[in-house]
């Protein structure tokens, strides 16, 4: 039936309202109606194929995770053999007295890494995460590691502190940990460096 029928002058508004309303109620362009019938119908035809591709992609991603694992291990074996490997981790307490901005790491007075922290990284550290701040190679023998922490201290003041540790690199991989701990007793942050 044509829109402009002979009875159009009487029925047109109602016809329009109803048709547009029904169109709207059944259309699903926002998340709210994402899985509504209209979309279901249009999706039905492509869904099995899509599912199959999604499954294949999922399987591929799983395989790539396993491949990544092997590649990371190979990389570590090749680039950082245990006889020379030194790893430095950084962990953080709740951060009441110190808000970390950056860390500079020196080994035997040479700057080996410098890291600026994002809010996400800080939150990840607060929640129990540990950052592998540095991994490198060192000759066997005695070495000194120094870490400089820059951030905001108590009362939001600029705060820069350092800590250092002397360690002996042996034939085994050496792991060190830098920790920022809140001391409620001193009302100050404490910076520690320990051998693991």
């Amino acid at each position: 039936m044509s829109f402009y029928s002979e009875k159009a002058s009487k029925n047109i508004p109602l016809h329009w309202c109803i048709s547009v309303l029904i169109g709207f109620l059944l259309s699903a362009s926002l998340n709210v109606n994402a899985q509504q019938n209209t979309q279901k119908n249009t999706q039905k035809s492509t869904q099995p194929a899509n599912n199959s591709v999604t499954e294949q992609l999922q399987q591929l991603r799983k395989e790539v995770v396993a491949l990544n694992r092997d590649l990371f291990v190979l990389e570590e074996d090749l680039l950082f053999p245990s006889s020379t490997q030194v790893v430095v981790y950084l962990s953080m307490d709740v951060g009441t007295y110190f808000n970390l901005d950056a860390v500079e790491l020196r080994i035997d007075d040479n700057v080996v890494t410098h890291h600026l922290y994002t809010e996400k990284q800080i939150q990840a550290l607060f929640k129990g995460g540990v950052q592998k701040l540095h991994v490198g190679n060192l000759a066997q023998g005695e070495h000194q590691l120094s870490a400089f922490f820059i951030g905001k201290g108590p009362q939001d003041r600029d705060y820069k502190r350092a800590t250092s540790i002397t360690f002996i690199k042996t034939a085994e991989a050496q792991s060190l940990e830098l920790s920022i701990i809140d001391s409620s007793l001193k009302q100050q942050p404490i910076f520690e460096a320990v051998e693991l």
Partner: protein
Amino acid sequence: MLKWFNALSYFCFVLVVSALISTQSSAQSSLQRSAKNNIKGNAQSPLQQARETNSVHLEKAYQQVLYEYYQGNFSLALTQMAILEQKFPNGLRHIPDFLRANQVEPELLKGGISLAYGLDNQAADIFLRLLKKNTAPDVTAYSWLLLGKTYYQKRQFSDAAQAFQKISQDNAEEFFDQSTRDNWFYMQSQLHGFLLDQQPDPNNIKWLEQLSGDSIYRNYVQYNQALALLQKGQNQQAMTSLFVLTNSENSFIRRWMNWSDPILNATDEQDVEAERDAIRDRANLTLGYTLLQNDKPHDAFRVFEKIRTDGLDSEAALLGYGWAAAKKNDLQIALAIWQRLIHMPQNSEYTLEAYLASAYAYEKAFAPRQSLQVLQQGLNRFEQALLGLNQAVQKVNQRQFILDLLPNANKQQTVDDDVRLLLDDKGQSFKSLKPFNTGQLFNSVAVTSEFRAGLSALEQSRDLQQQLLEWQQRMQQYHLMLDERQAERLKRAKQISQNRTLEQLPALQIKRDALAQIIDMAKHQQDGQIFMSLQSQQWLDRVKRSEKRLGTIARLKTQLGQLPLKDNYQRRVERVAGRLVWQASEAYSANQWQAQKALNQLDTEITKAQQRQQKLLNQLAAKPDFAEQKLRVSNLAKLIDTKIAKNNGLQDVLISQLSNMFNQFIQVHKQKVSHYILQAKLAMVRLNDQALQKDNDSSIPLNQEPANQASTNEVDQL
């Protein structure tokens, strides 16, 4: 007499040689290890130490997983988790308690990361395994929740609903925080309200009551409930529900910072507010049309006024706004609204329908000439729209068109944001076909969940490809690096051979044995003179020379018949000699102890040097592992190539699917436009017929340019 001095010089030489060997050997002696342990003051057994070291390394490995996970780097977190599991089989069962805070059961976390990364099958397996073996109520509750979400993501709605129902209200209250609970309620509401194709569940009301006041899910559930009521024909209740939703105040969502945050709540505050506004617009739109249907144009008019003009529903709202005005006989206002819609560049169904609506309004206002004119304009635009759509079909079939929709991997943008901008740009690129603009049409494709899922899969595929290509390049570098290392090793071995470094130690050992024999002899003979200091030995030599001279002088004097020398000289020399011998005898014990100590030190250093040399020899004798390493690299490179090929195949399929989606939408739109053309043509014929019937005397045909176009312009200006 000088033997002891020589011994000391040999000792120094051995030290130098030992140090030289030490630098050439990469191995560390066990003595150094024990020295380190002494420094630490660690009195534990080696087994205990190894166990503790292992535990610390496991802890750090797990904390690295947490570090990546809390940043939302799910791929890296999963990789770290895989490395952890490879290095420490069953390690996840031995994670220390302090890292299990916030109910982070490591297995559960692994499932959560898998879910967040899109590995639904792996996630489901983990949750089911946990549910089989775990009896802790908190872990069970979270496992059911995440399993339900996994099924929900896999579109297995019935399984999802069953999983959610396994969580008791009490457990949800106890173990979930507000945001997680809201998510749980919302998903159940969605499942029972729409997705399971069943009658609307009365529980929906219950879920709505239990949702927190400021949760975004509340808005969704309210809207979905209203839609369900409309579908059931309960318009009055639906309108009440929509009215409540449209009058809800803006509020800020709380940030939820516990462990499940990255899985269940990835939106930030700004996004939530934008989402809330969009829902409010949609609710107003639905309410407006419902009021129109219920013959309440005045109320509908006021409702349409609340919808934002820059929102997703602005065009649909303008169309309805016009109809509300028309229905309350404000035809001029209706025409003005529709004219505004007509002048919009987008060729959406609303802008195109506005031509037909305007024609209707003119006709109703007894202006058939203007009505015909608008229809003619509409017809032109419809045809242009068709032309543009045909060109768009060609465009969307190009591979690059789809690839260009992917967000830039270097930017931190979401797929949705980026696609919207890109599609707008692409829509604008059809400007040569003014006034056609496909941006709106492309956006309507982009908001569908199917398209977003496809694009997200394509993005994942693109990321995988980048990652794999990067690894492929690195494998080539590692091959070169191994070649260099092999050459360097040969060079060093040659250098060692040329310097005869390894031949020096046996010669030193022989010398050391000779010295030890001398010391033994001195001890056996109790001869203090062997241990005398260098100066004393020189003095003793002088005294002996003096004795010889005195003897010579005495002999010569006797031959010459002169008086012999006085005894004083002889006695004096004897006294000095006796004193020196006496001193040597006195210092015998101390000197002998010192000599033995030095010999022992020498032995220690020689032993160390021997050990280092042995290690160096072992290393030199060992078969080089370069071949093995190269094989490892080659195998991985082959694996990478396979994955790249597989990924390329998947990418092609995904691109084709996305192109098809665009094509389907374009075809539907083309059908609509064709329908509008038909409507317009029919209306024009009808109007001309009416005019001919009513005004047979008229000399000016209706389809010619009217003399007085002022009335149309006036309406336009409104």
